[in-house]
């Protein structure tokens, strides 16, 4: 999870098994990269008044990251620009040597969560165009996420329908800290459109919903924010399960991204126990919450939990199912999980290939 400094970046790809990386963060070199797809008026508004997210800082986090752009120090492209902004360097540093045959792009800082609905929708559209023009159109291993202005459901559903059927888009992207809990009815038109388009909804940790990251106010440290994503994602998933969105949209699939996964079994047990006692409150649920979870929810692996006794993780994965996990590195961020070291456990070949590649292929319907 710490900075990886490879002495030999040219490790032969052939010597490594093919993997999917289900959480890659492409970055723009600067605001101008999106200008081809933004109107003059939108550009002026952004330049004059800023993005206006539900955050106090105009730019940069109030919990300063542990390193610049929360990225690996060795991930700065030699030609300049921020980490993750160069396709050729991403290929040379990550995709080629790690033999990534399927890479899912999750652009961040991409117009999601802006308070102004029109601005949010305009920037999201531009980011989607940019993904095709600069990334998926240039490297067939990469697939894009439909970035949607999720707090504005109508515009989000329209964005999904705009891209539905486009072979480069394989999922719809949310950030986890929405303005209201994820299962709330205001988001249902988005789930309806995603289910219709056959696209999974992926919920990536982070966001700016306006509420503190804990139920007890704002903590002091970046480590608390980072650790806290697991709690906020548990609450988001709880909301999706208890509100009954999988009953309402039976084809809907959800991926929890960058929140870890080892919390899932305990959450499922708690939900089931609580639901059994309180089920008069949720007559719309036809089965136990854990059953919806087992059928409709996937998790990307990074940052993968590290028990003192590594084998304990095998119990956890056994409780979840080996078909639920999608390997991810989080490239180029600092807490990158290295595929060569992430799973030092005795597992079967079938388990290893579902973990690293086959689950992603099946979920995204990509023949990589």
């Amino acid at each position, binding site marked *: *999870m*710490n900075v990886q400094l490879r002495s030999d970046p040219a490790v032969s790809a052939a010597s490594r098994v093919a993997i999917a990386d289900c959480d890659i963060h492409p970055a723009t070199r600067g605001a101008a990269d999106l200008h081809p797809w933004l109107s003059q008026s939108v550009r002026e508004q952004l330049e004059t008044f800023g993005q206006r997210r539900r955050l106090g800082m105009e730019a940069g986090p109030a919990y300063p990251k*542990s390193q610049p752009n929360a990225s690996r120090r060795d991930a700065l492209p030699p030609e300049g620009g921020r980490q993750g902004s160069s396709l050729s360097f991403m290929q040379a540093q990550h995709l080629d040597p790690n033999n990534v045959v399927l890479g899912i792009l999750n652009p961040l800082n991409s117009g999601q969560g802006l308070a102004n609905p029109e601005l949010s929708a305009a920037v999201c559209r531009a980011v989607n165009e940019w993904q095709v023009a600069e990334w998926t159109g240039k490297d067939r291993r990469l697939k894009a996420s439909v970035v949607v202005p999720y707090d504005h459901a109508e515009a989000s559903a329209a964005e999904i329908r705009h891209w539905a059927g486009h072979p480069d888009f394989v999922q719809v992207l949310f950030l986890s*800290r929405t*303005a*209201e*809990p*994820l299962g709330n009815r205001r988001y249902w038109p988005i789930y309806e459109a995603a289910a219709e388009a056959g696209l999974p909804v992926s919920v990536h940790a982070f966001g700016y*919903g306006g*509420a*503190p*990251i*804990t*139920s*007890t*106010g704002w*903590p*002091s*440290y*970046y*480590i*608390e924010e*980072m*650790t*806290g994503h*697991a*709690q*906020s994602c*548990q*609450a*988001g998933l*709880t*909301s999706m399960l*208890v*509100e009954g969105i999988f009953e309402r949209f039976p084809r809907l699939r959800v991926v929890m991204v960058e929140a*870890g996964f*080892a*919390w899932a*079994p*305990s*959450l499922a*047990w*708690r939900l089931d*126990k*609580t*639901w059994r*006692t*309180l089920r008069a*409150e*949720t007559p719309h649920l036809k089965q136990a919450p854990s059953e919806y979870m087992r059928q409709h929810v996937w998790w990307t692996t990074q*940052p993968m*939990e*590290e*028990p*003192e006794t590594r084998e*304990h993780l095998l*119990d*956890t994965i056994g409780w979840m199912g080996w078909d639920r996990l999608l390997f991810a590195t989080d490239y180029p961020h*600092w*807490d990158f999980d290295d595929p060569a070291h992430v799973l030092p456990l005795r597992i079967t070949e079938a388990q290893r290939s579902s973990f690293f590649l086959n689950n992603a292929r099946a979920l995204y319907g990509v023949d990589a």
Partner: protein
Amino acid sequence: MTAFAPIDCDIHPSIPGLVALLPHMEEHWREIVQLRGIDELNSISYPARSPLTARPDWRPKTGKPAATLEQIQRECLDPFGSALAICHCLYGVQLLFSEDMAAAFARAVNNWVAKELLDREPRLRASIVVPTQNVELAVDEIERCARDPRFVQVLLLASGDQPLGKRVYWPIYAAAERHRLAIGIHAGSNYHNPPTASGWPTYYTEDYTAQAQAFQTQLTSLICEGVFNRYPELMVVLLESGWTWLPAHLWRLTKYWRGLRMEIPWVDRAPSDIVRSNVRLSLQPTDGPPDSAGLQRVIEHLQSDELLLFSTDYPHWQFEGTNALPPGLPQSLVRKIMVDNPRATYARLLEPVQ
């Protein structure tokens, strides 16, 4: 049950009503209650008729569950054969916005508990309800009640105005350590912040489920802010927290501590080590897998047999009959959970009460 007389670390006597508190209040506040028509301080954390709030056989035809000593003896102390039980009064004192009013109600609750329960039943102990709205007043209340050895713990809620590790709360921990009182953090919120990072959920089911996440963030806060470095003798008990989430949470927190410890250099031990020396959790609810073999795997993931403290969570509905212990636990662990761990956690339980 077993041959051991357990120490029940989490039971919930109900305040019969605001009227019952009036005799235990200063005259000014008695007058205010009547003058302003102040309502019962009932929190949405446990709606009166919700099935979880009281087990069907512990729900009286009239009145509140667990509202009289006779109910508590007949339904809880006697059937479980408890040697001792620790009372946590969940009355909405912490929800008030007025610091002075909260302090007055906290004093009344503690006076009521001492007089109506502790004076009349030697098997009972209690936690001190404090006005967390004002730390100075909270410390005053700890000092006042600590003279009575039957108070063994300070009671805080899992969600409040700020994370509990914040320095503003440290005088509470200093007072607790000074008086050998444990800090008990119980499920519940003052609802001054939304229950999730994305605001207010629709259903009570979500709110109760989310209590486990509140405990996770509080544990993160207490550890990262350095509470246990400053107060190494302090014992923190997570009450009605669920506990099966603990291993996964510590795996995550310890991984981030390795990567980010430059931000909190005073945390000089792994979070998992700190928990083993300073944090305990009550047994109910046990949010475990359906099979006892699975539950034993979870217990192995705890990597310690000292963390769990026996509790019935009476009168909340967490299990049937007297089966507070999940089946299949080894006898050696049963004894630790029921007797040894509570005695090691609550220094004051070993002191004479006269």
